[in-house]
């Protein structure tokens, strides 16, 4: 727990520093994808359910909030409505998905994601179709970019603290039991389908929170934000940052946004670079950046100790996704 407090402080320092090096909107985007990566990790890293469909709930919340803001409704209504719709949709989709495991689970999340994508694609009158949903106004008090960034940071920290509380609660422990050994978890008395569903809905709802803010960053929801490739990007963030730790995915999200922001203007084929990084991480850095940093930290902390000895304070290790 002590370690988590330090990591939260480091995150706070990072949040304060990034707008000094990047435009506030890019910085806000980093925090938004930070929420998505950490929340998706509750499902992937903690519960062992690999989803390729999280962009759906991000998109649903973003479209809902965007449409309501465009209709002149206040943020206090639009934001909860976006999150609620993400929650309800993920509740329905999750109900079907958690009935299956492994490859079938992955395929179901993917299929539902694409279903929502095609709905957004063809429902041009409402969603703007291929052009996306432009012209989303920000509330007056968020018109200034720095104020908007501060607002995003506050929501980001509220989400981080809430998710940290969840993963450290008995609920979080049950998620880990399911990841480790679902049959045994069931045999000691936990209804694993119900808990998998909770994990699915919790992860998707926090992703929805991120979606509602995203709608206001550039005042547009591009159609590709609901495409399954975005779900793939989220998984990249988890693996790059490290799905074995709570804070690891934040590193992945920040790196992804930084790379897309920096390299996309230089080279149109920049995702190729991401592919190379991905291959490198999967082959040589199974625990992602979080494990790399943790190993370096341990070497400095115990210069005379056995470098192979795991850090006693770490609660998680990179996991095999079993769903």
């Amino acid at each position, binding site marked *: 727990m002590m370690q988590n407090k330090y990591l939260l402080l480091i995150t706070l320092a990072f949040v304060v520093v990034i707008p000094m090096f990047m435009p506030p909107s890019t910085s806000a985007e980093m925090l938004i994808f930070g929420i998505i990566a950490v929340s998706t990790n509750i499902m992937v890293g903690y519960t062992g359910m690999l989803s390729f469909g999280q962009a759906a709930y991000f998109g649903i919340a973003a479209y809902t909030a965007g449409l309501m803001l465009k209709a002149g409704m206040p943020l206090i209504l639009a934001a909860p409505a976006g999150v609620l719709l993400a929650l309800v949709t993920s509740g329905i989709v999750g109900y079907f998905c958690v009935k299956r495991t492994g490859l079938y689970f992955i395929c179901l999340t993917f299929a539902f994601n694409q279903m929502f994508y095609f709905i957004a694609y063809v429902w041009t009158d409402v969603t703007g179709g291929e052009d996306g949903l432009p012209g989303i106004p920000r509330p007056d008090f968020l018109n200034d970019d720095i104020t908007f960034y501060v607002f995003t940071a506050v929501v980001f920290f509220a989400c981080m603290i809430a998710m940290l*509380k*969840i993963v*450290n*609660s*008995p*609920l979080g*422990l*049950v998620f*880990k*039991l399911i990841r*480790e*050994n679902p*049959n*045994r*978890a*069931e*045999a*000691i*008395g*936990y*209804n*694993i389908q119900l808990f998998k569903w909770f994990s699915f809905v919790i992860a998707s709802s926090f992703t929805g929170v991120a979606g509602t803010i995203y709608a206001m960053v550039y005042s547009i929801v591009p159609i590709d934000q609901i495409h399954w490739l975005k779900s793939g990007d989220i998984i990249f963030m988890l693996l790059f940052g490290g799905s074995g730790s709570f804070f690891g995915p934040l590193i992945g999200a920040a790196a992804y946004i930084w790379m897309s922001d920096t390299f996309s203007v230089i080279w149109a084929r920049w995702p190729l670079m991401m592919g190379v990084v991905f291959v490198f991480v999967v082959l040589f850095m199974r625990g992602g950046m979080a494990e790399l940093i943790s190993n370096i930290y341990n070497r400095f902390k115990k210069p005379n100790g056995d470098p192979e000895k795991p850090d*006693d304070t770490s609660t*998680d*290790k990179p*996991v095999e996704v079993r769903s």
Partner: protein
Amino acid sequence: MSIVLSCKGLAKTYGEDRVVKGVDLDVRAGHIHSVIGPNGAGKSTFFNLISCQVPKTAGSAFFEGQDITSVAPHDLPHMGVSRCFQRTNVFPKLTIYENVWAAVFARMNGGPVDFLKTIAGFGAVKDHAEEIITRVGLAHKLHDKAETLSHGQSRMLEVAVTLAGVPRIILLDEPTQGLAPEATHEMTDLIKELAAEYTILLIEHKMHIVMGISDVISVLNLGEKIAEGTPDEIQKNQMVQDAYLGRLR
């Protein structure tokens, strides 16, 4: 003594293969009731039927009057039935304490709200978990990950997780499998000690253990119950000798 677990015509068929052929079996309160039989006799399938791991083809098993073969596996511990698995089946990346804590919490939580509280806030769950860990001799490993345990210690953890469910009957599936003689001795002592508090249904291959600790033994052969009685009676039973013990000689 009253009958706590009663199986009536319990059967399992895989295609043409009748693995368990209508077994009747009564387990009395406070007994160590062992189920033995040669390889392929259907013992594990019989156990899986009672613990809802596989769906039955016919028959029923009643625990304290309630049919336990048609409930969800996760409801079974809440009815007072805990199962220890043949293959060591704990949560490898979690600590010994977390393994047992989670099993105690499964039975002792007060409702949905408890799942969102802090783990440290459940004093009674902590005390009970620590008591069980001490009982199986793993107190010195409290905060070690389960994957670091030896095979013998893992078997003890498996029993600890089973006990954590506050059961009234324990189903033990070959608890001494793969254990060194010293560890087997410790496990046998623990089972004897547990018999004072719980009813135990045991599957075990090691004959000297079964004969030494059982009150009643049922013998399965080719999916059928061919004999039942005290260890003395079973040892003298000609049919059992032919089917099982006889072959060992």
